């Protein structure tokens, strides 16, 4: 055969999503009682783009008196309007919000990516489509609660304080708002201080949808604002997603007050690869499990267990696959891994990577180059680890995977459960019976079989043990927002 000699290196040209048409308000006020108002003390904090450390906007910080104002607006809206409204009418408002989000999906994805650092591929294909899907799903329940709880009357609880994290900002807002509104509650939502911008855009949509004033109020601030909200005497229910430490504080604070609460906290999920799994697809599942959203995922598959007969193959394939992950500009459509959400989080990840090495674990990182400005971390795996390592026990919330091998089914079940957490897990095998055997034995709220990190509004999500209590999503997601009489 005549061979051709010319060889070319082929690289993808930059393919950045255009931001020309995106309008980010330089100054964002509090959204209370249907209006944008300035905070009482006039204090603002800045939010930056973690990919380049440039300031995006100023955001109003709510103090105690602003929280009071928001709770009062929510209480009035609850008493006078929302709890009394015909459920079908409530549903119409929620449908309208869902449609408006769909119409402006591109704008939301771009802002989510700029404010939070996640790749545009994820905000465009996963976050924002799921946001509208959640509103659509719960809009449907609004006038069908009698079918959700046969023989009972589902009454709303009242005013809900909702505190959401920075890893899926708008999606977590949707998870919390949609069921609360569908069941007739009014809400004060507090986004995380590093990612407030999409929630403020949502406030615009809520105005546009003509939702009665006070039904949804959005205030910003850090821990202190959250604390004021949690401790407010006129709040009936707290919904929190975030760290286990803060979750514990919230539990203490609401103890004895009669406030209802749901907590969605940390995780350290076991992702289990059996020797009879489809190996190439399982490797994709490992990548999705730990590198999705830079590993800022409470249900991330951060503990990998590989059966010893295939361990060498799996780890070698994983290392190859890590080399093909594109790390860089989150707005580039080809980026797989974006920026770490904040300096604080990057420091925490680095601390754990340091601990892992000091503990004697074997580190391997992809050889990708990282941008100079902004907060970045290369995809990282650790082998030679044991259950006693801190990087196996504690949640890192970054692109860092700890890999152990195992020999028997019983051994891996015991190790998978040997953790204070119990949020999610994964099992990879070609044998259906083994899927059932393992998934029944593992104490976690979600268990994926031959896939990982899949979300759907119809499916309940939540944890055991220190991963939290209560479920969000699905029919079960209605329960924390109703009193059944």
């Amino acid at each position, binding site marked *: 055969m005549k061979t*051709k000699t010319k060889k070319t290196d*082929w690289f993808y*040209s930059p*393919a950045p999503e255009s931001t020309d048409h995106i309008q980010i308000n330089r100054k964002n006020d509090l959204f209370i009682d249907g209006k944008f108002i300035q905070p009482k003390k006039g204090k603002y904090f800045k939010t930056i783009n973690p990919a380049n450390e440039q300031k995006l906007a100023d955001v109003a910080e709510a103090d105690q008196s602003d929280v009071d104002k928001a709770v009062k607006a929510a209480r009035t809206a609850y008493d006078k309007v929302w709890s009394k409204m015909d459920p079908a009418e409530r549903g119409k408002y929620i449908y309208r919000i869902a449609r408006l989000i769909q119409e402006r999906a591109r704008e939301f994805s771009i802002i989510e990516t700029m404010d939070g650092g996640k790749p545009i591929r994820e905000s465009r294909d996963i976050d924002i489509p799921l946001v509208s899907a959640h509103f659509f799903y719960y809009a449907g329940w609004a006038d069908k609660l009698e079918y959700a709880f046969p023989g009972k009357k589902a009454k709303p609880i009242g005013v809900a304080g909702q505190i959401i994290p920075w890893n899926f900002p708008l999606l977590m807002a949707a998870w919390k708002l949609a069921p609360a509104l569908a069941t007739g509650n009014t809400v004060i939502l507090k986004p995380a201080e590093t990612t407030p911008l999409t929630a403020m855009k949502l406030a615009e949509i809520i105005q546009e949808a003509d939702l009665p004033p006070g039904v949804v109020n959005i205030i910003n601030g850090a821990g202190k604002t959250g604390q004021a909200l949690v401790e407010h005497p006129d709040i009936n229910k707290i919904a929190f997603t975030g760290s286990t430490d803060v979750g514990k504080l919230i539990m203490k604070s609401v103890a004895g007050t009669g406030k209802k609460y749901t907590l969605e906290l940390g995780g350290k999920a076991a992702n289990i690869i059996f020797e*009879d799994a489809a190996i*190439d*697809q*399982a490797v994709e599942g490992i990548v999705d499990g730990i590198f999705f959203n830079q590993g800022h995922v409470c249900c991330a598959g951060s503990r990998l267990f590989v059966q010893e007969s295939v361990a060498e193959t799996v780890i070698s394939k994983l290392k190859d696959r890590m080399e093909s992950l594109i790390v860089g500009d989150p707005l580039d459509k*080809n980026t797989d891994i974006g920026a770490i959400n904040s300096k604080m989080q990057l420091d925490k990840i680095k601390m754990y990577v340091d601990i892992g090495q000091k503990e004697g674990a074997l580190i391997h990182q992809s050889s990708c180059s990282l941008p100079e400005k902004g907060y970045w971390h290369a995809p990282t795996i650790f082998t030679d680890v044991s259950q006693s390592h801190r990087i196996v026990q504690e949640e890192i919330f970054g692109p860092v995977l700890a890999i152990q091998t195992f020999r028997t089914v019983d051994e891996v079940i015991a190790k998978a459960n040997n953790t204070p957490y119990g949020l999610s897990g994964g099992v990879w095998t070609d044998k259906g019976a083994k899927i059932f055997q393992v998934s029944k034995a593992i104490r976690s709220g979600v268990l994926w079989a031959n896939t990982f990190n899949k979300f759907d509004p119809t499916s309940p999500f939540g944890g055991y043990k220190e991963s939290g209590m209560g479920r969000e999503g699905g029919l079960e997601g209605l329960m924390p927002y109703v009193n059944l009489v």
Partner: protein
Amino acid sequence: METFVNRIDQVGVQERVARLFSRSIKKESKINALHTVLSMIDLTTLEGKDSPGKVKQLCYKAVHLHDQFPSLPSVAAICVYPTMVPIAKKALENTNINVASVATAFPSGMASLEYKLNEVKMVVADGADEVDMVISRGKFLRGEYTYVADEISAVKEACGKAHLKVILETGELVTLDNVRLASDIAMKAGADFIKTSTGKVSPAATPPVVLVMLEAIRDYYKKTGKKIGMKPAGGISKAKLAIQYLVMIKETLGQDWLHADLFRFGASSLANDVLMQIVKQSTSVYQSANYFSMD
């Protein structure tokens, strides 16, 4: 025989394909890709009604893809039926374009081994640089893997210096598990290339099938250090799809396989669509199909 079974999860493969195909290839990278695609094409005519005249025209086209753009690469090879090999060989004298011939009772493979080997020897004697054989799908589906492997080895021997492409006819193998097993058998038995389809069975090359075969090639390379080539054939007529396949190669096998020595497109109408895109990239407007020769 293969002792370790490589299992394939179809849903996972489809997800991976969707992810790979969502890569955005623009500007410089698109122009480079279009040129690379052209250089990888096996310009093909495999019809019962093929005539010496048609084959000569195709050979001329292979050398003169679009003379208005002088810097274009030529295609990799011309792929024809055995009786057309001498004609193609003559028409492509003094070019660096290979002549590939289908053989082994293409497309069905329903003939004796003796018949197949004679056919292979004939096309090689006539000057074929590459031989595209078909596997015995009936035997494979009955589980007679040793027969299939032995047959490939025998054909490989008959090929002599000619390169052997082994057509799995994945449309008849039905499952991705079968595609993987057939790929493993073919590579071990001596294939220089593995090829999806004859183009005579639907579906021909599908993205999940191509991905599974590329993964098989990758694993074989890791195990043996031997680089096996890949040729999807049939149903690839658009430049966009061809570029998506380049993404799949790059991210599965790496840069080395982005070359006509290790990757080919078996296609008849792909070249003109690629040419149309290349012209569009430089003029910003699409020309009608009438501006591209239809040989």
